[in-house]
Each structure stands twice: as C-alpha cells, then as structure tokens.
C-alpha cells in the first residue's frame, strides 16, 4: 500500500469533517446582526449546514463572523480576537461595512476588514439577506473542502 494514497484520503476525510462542523464566533457590532440572528435561528437555520454551534469564546471557534461596521478604535480588538482563535480558522466578512466600509466612507471606519485580518469569504449586501449568507457559507465550505491540510499557518512558516 502506497503512503500517498492514504494521505490523500485522510485529507478528504479531514476537510469533509471540518466543513460540516464549523463552530462560529459572531463578532457583531451593527445592524447586520439582525440578519445574522435570522440566519442562525430556526427560520433559515444555519445548523442545516453544520455551522450551528455558536461559541462565545474565540479560542473555541473555527469561523469568525465579522458582522457590522468596524471602526478605528475597534480594529485592535478585532485583531486580538482573530489572534486568539486556533488554527485552522476562517473569516467571513458579513455585509458591506466589513467588505469595504460600506456607506461609511470617512475617517473613523476601517475601509474593509482585510486591512486588519485575512478574509476568506466576502458577503455583500447592506445588510445581506439570510439566503446570501447561506450561499456564502456554502462557498466557504467548498473552499474548506479544497483546502485539505494546506493550512494558512503552514504556508506562513515555510
């Protein structure tokens, strides 16, 4: 039996397990939180896609949901929360403010959270409808499936 065969299958199993067991940490600052609640609760039920487990500690979470406007004073806080999460971790930019600053084109608001932390999936909309969020989640799951063990931190150390 060749070693390569086993590693490949293990990768596939690992990614499959990961994509259906996303523990998420909601970092909610603004009105997009309403859409997050709608997505997470029974009507749209994010649990159907295996992301129903909300952890209120970043240390136990895999997916950081950044929901709402991030301003300059909050930037170090968001960075700290991201740093506290253990690998592997994914970031979802939820709504126009996190993607690009949205309507807040001014001195106080961070123009897209990718200035602070790396983002895996961008969800547009002001605010995005729950269907859009679920679509984004499915796209993130595809990405996780394709990732295998090629984690971000491995790339960083090499």
């Amino acid at each position: 039996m060749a070693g390569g065969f086993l590693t490949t299958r293990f990768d596939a199993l690992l990614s499959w397990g990961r994509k259906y067991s996303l523990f998420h940490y909601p970092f909610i600052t603004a009105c997009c939180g309403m859409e997050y609640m709608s997505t997470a609760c029974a009507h749209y039920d994010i649990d159907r896609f295996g992301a129903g487990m909300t952890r209120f500690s970043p240390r136990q979470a895999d997916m950081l949901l950044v929901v709402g406007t991030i301003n300059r004073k909050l930037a170090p806080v968001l960075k700290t929360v991201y740093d506290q999460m253990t690998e592997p971790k994914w970031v979802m930019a939820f709504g126009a403010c996190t993607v690009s600053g949205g309507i807040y084109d001014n001195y106080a608001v961070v123009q897209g959270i990718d200035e602070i932390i790396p983002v895996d999936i961008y969800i547009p909309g002001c605010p995005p409808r729950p269907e859009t969020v679920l679509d984004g989640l499915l796209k993130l799951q595809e990405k996780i499936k394709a990732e295998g063990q090629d984690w971000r931190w491995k790339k960083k150390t090499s």
Partner: protein
Amino acid sequence: MEEKDILTALREALPGAVLEEGESFGDPVVRIRPEALLPAAGLLKAEPPGYAMLLDATCVDYPDRPGRFEMVYHFFSLARNRRIRVKADLPAGRPEIASLAAMWKNAAWLEREIFDMFGVRFAGHPDLRRLFLDEGFEGHPLRKDFPLRGRQPLPSNSKQETP
C-alpha cells in the same frame, strides 16, 4: 417669570459676564464670557429654579468668526421643567475653557468628546483623552478645515501581519 429672574440673577452676580441674551424655541439663550463659565454654571445649579442637570455640552466651529469655537451647554431644571442654553465663544488659537466635570460627572465624557472632535481643551478635567478615536489619530475631525475623508493609517497594533 422665572426665566427673567435667572437672567437677572446672572447679570447681577457676574457683572460684565453676560454678553447677549435671547430666546430660541421658547428657551432662554445666554452668551457669556468663557472665563465666567464656572461661576455662571454654579449659579445656575444653585439658584432657583435650580438647573440641576447638564443635558448636553457641545461645540460648533465657525471658521470666519473671531471667536471660532462656540461652546454650547444645555441645562435642565428637573424641579420646574425648564431649560436654558449657555454659549461661550473661544478663540481659534488655543481654545480652552474650564471643565464642568467637578460639578456634573457626565461633563467628563461630553468634554472628552469635544476635545476629540474639536480640540478644545478643558482646564481641570480629570482625564482629558480622546473618546471616540484612537490615541494615534491626528487632527480633530469636526473642525471645518478637516478634510472630508481624512483617512489615516491604522494603529500599528491592528495591522495585518504579512507572512
């Protein structure tokens, strides 16, 4: 009328301090010398009807006026349901006025906001730091000469690390 009484009391207790009197939306407005703010506020709080509550303190920037920064204080009498507005003009160079934080605790944060947004300094303030913006931010955004967007680099402790 109580309004007349409090204005008369202000004029008599602090001669020369009251520069202008008027009325706006049914409430008395009085413009005083900035040096007289502390005694005037003390009098408003002590004398009947007793303006015991500081509703709001804010600032307006008029770049073309000699007194560029117009401080605006709103006081409220809980006993009689009356309001009064007190204004004071500060010069453009180094705007500074006495802090009301010792008399009204909520003034501490209101004044921190004004310091953050307009750069007005408050003498005797216990902790005069920026309220809304980070410590590294340069300038005061609500001044009329601040650029429309005026973006500045993020603080170094929130930058994304490049691998």
